[in-house]
């Protein structure tokens, strides 16, 4: 039986990890809501952002967090371009399948380019405050993990406020829920859809920076992220942001707790078990998401 402190620490770490999952899953959910696109390249962009953060620190000697000044707008633009230039040009009839392939191709391309530019060597940021940690009721939590969680939480909150409180958010929600009606009231749904994609990719930029703080990165790492992320959005009910967030926290927590008896590798299987169980028994997901049934 693991000690109480260890359990407590696992719970904290699981929630911290879940926060990052939630942010990234929110991005995936956004794409799916807008266009019914499963964006396989999301996690490749995540790793790309992590590499850019590492590069900023390693080669330019600047704090990795500052890389977001460049990556967030850059990724936003890339997202808009990708939606307007590529995905919206696919045939509507085969959009779901072909968009998966296209984003898959982009993921493979990014992985290849990363390998080409930075080689397959594992990279890790060594920060001055990297080894600092704080104690809390006997649990030791690394400061960088807290920073990463803070980033994710702030970004999620900003996303939430943007969606709920601004005119753009209102238009975006209208585009997702009732595109026809949205057009009727004068929303340029195509433009909004592009911005929505930009927003989704911006979450990958923030997530990637957060990830780079305490994770060893390598080009093919994105496959380890896309699996869990896809499981999260299915369990949460495709298209539901609150569902994705709840599933992210829950699965992140379970992964962290299962690491105690099973080790890190096997603990990952929880995502896939949850994925299969959801699809076999409750395909619409466990947290609402009424779109899911048909996709």
């Amino acid at each position: 039986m693991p000690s109480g402190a260890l359990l407590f620490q696992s719970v904290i770490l699981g929630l911290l990890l879940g926060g990052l999952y939630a942010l990234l899953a929110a991005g995936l959910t956004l794409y799916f809501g807008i266009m019914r696109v499963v964006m396989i390249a999301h996690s490749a962009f995540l790793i790309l952002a992590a590499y850019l953060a590492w590069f900023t620190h390693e080669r330019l000697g600047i704090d990795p967090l500052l890389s977001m000044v460049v990556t967030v707008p850059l990724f936003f633009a890339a997202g808009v371009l990708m939606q307007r230039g590529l995905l919206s040009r696919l045939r509507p009839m085969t959009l779901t399948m072909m968009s998966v392939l296209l984003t898959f191709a982009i993921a493979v391309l990014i992985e290849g380019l990363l390998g080409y530019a930075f080689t397959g060597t594992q990279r890790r940021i060594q920060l001055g405050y990297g080894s600092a940690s704080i104690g809390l009721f006997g649990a030791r939590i690394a400061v960088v993990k807290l920073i990463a969680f803070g980033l994710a939480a702030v970004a999620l909150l900003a996303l939430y406020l943007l969606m709920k409180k601004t005119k753009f958010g209102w238009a975006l929600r209208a585009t997702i829920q009732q595109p026809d009606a949205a057009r009727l009231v004068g929303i340029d749904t195509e433009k909004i859809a592009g911005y929505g994609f930009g927003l989704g990719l911006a979450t990958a930029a923030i997530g990637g920076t957060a990830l780079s703080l305490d994770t060893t990165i390598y080009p093919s790492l994105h496959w380890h992220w896309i699996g869990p992320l896809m499981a999260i959005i299915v369990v949460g009910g495709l298209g539901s942001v609150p569902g994705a967030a709840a599933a992210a926290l829950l699965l992140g927590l379970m992964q962290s707790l299962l690491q105690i008896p099973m080790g890190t590798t096997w603990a990952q299987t929880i995502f896939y078990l949850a994925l299969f169980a959801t699809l076999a028994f409750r395909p619409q997901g466990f947290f609402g998401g009424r779109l899911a049934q048909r996709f």
Partner: protein
Amino acid sequence: MPSASDTVTAPGAAPAPPGPAAGRPRLGRVLTIAAVVALAAAVLAFPGLAPNPYILSAGIVVLNYAVLSTSWNFVGGFTGYISLGHGALAGLGGYGTGLLVTKAGLPSLAALVLAMLLVALIAVPIGFAALRVRGASFVIVSIALVLIMLLVFQSWASVTGGSRGLVVPRPFPDLLRPEHHRVFYYLYAGLLALALGVWWLIDRSRFGLGLKAIREDEDKAEALGTPTFAYKLVVFVVSAAFTALSGGLYALWFGDLDPVFQFSILTGSYMVLMALLGGVRNLFGPLVGALVVGTALEFFKGSFGNTPLHLVATGVLLGLVVMFMPDGVLPALRNLFARFDRTRQSSIREVSAAELRDQRLQSTGGKA
């Protein structure tokens, strides 16, 4: 060769009424048959022409790709469901065969067949979870499958050998290397012929027509009385069985399995790329795609070794095909032919409702 659902052919049908379709297929059919015979002859003659065992082994690898992408096309071509995880099924076939030989002491052939049956059995629950809902979930499960298998086979080292690999004894220990290659080359050619034959059989059957109806409009097919879920599941299992056979044969030929290569996401994406490039609605589409892409892959591997450029090239090529040639090379070629004898183009077109619907869909952001 066009698939049976295409406009230009109606094999076995009564002579079409005097209308736009009469007369046209003849030239096309002759050309098709000639091309198929030439292709078969080239495939069979290749071992005699290959200057060295290395080239011959490259030929085997390409044939392996051809079988894999043809197997993939049972699902992708008929139902339109795109699986990115068929690599996992090939890997399972390979490991299944290898483990049955090494751990259970079965003879190679028996191990191959048993492994195929086991994979087909495993495909049932996988298909059950993946095919109950439409589209997106299927792709998600297919990718997850590869990631899970990689995880399991790397971690479960006591059985699978983990990253140290699994050595599979050769089925024909007495044969010299070139002979060994030659035997496997023909085994692969036979398997390819079998896969093509079954695909052809399904293509012209009622079952196949039902599958194609699913590809075109699943709700509509269901409303017409097609048990779509059962159809998808059956064809998925058939596809898995052929994929597993190809993987098993590879294990026996290559003799050394490593999870990183057996459960690589790339294997699946190669299958998709090849089938899509050739044309998923065509019997020989995946084969043509495999010949082109497979040969290029082997050539680049020989010239430059394994580099990230493989990934870049695969990504770019797949992206280009999806954007600009989603129907593949063969239909494009056929359209080119059709332009030469245009007599059959009649003016039935008023407003195409499909276009109307496309526009409508486009305007709703692809929601149907």
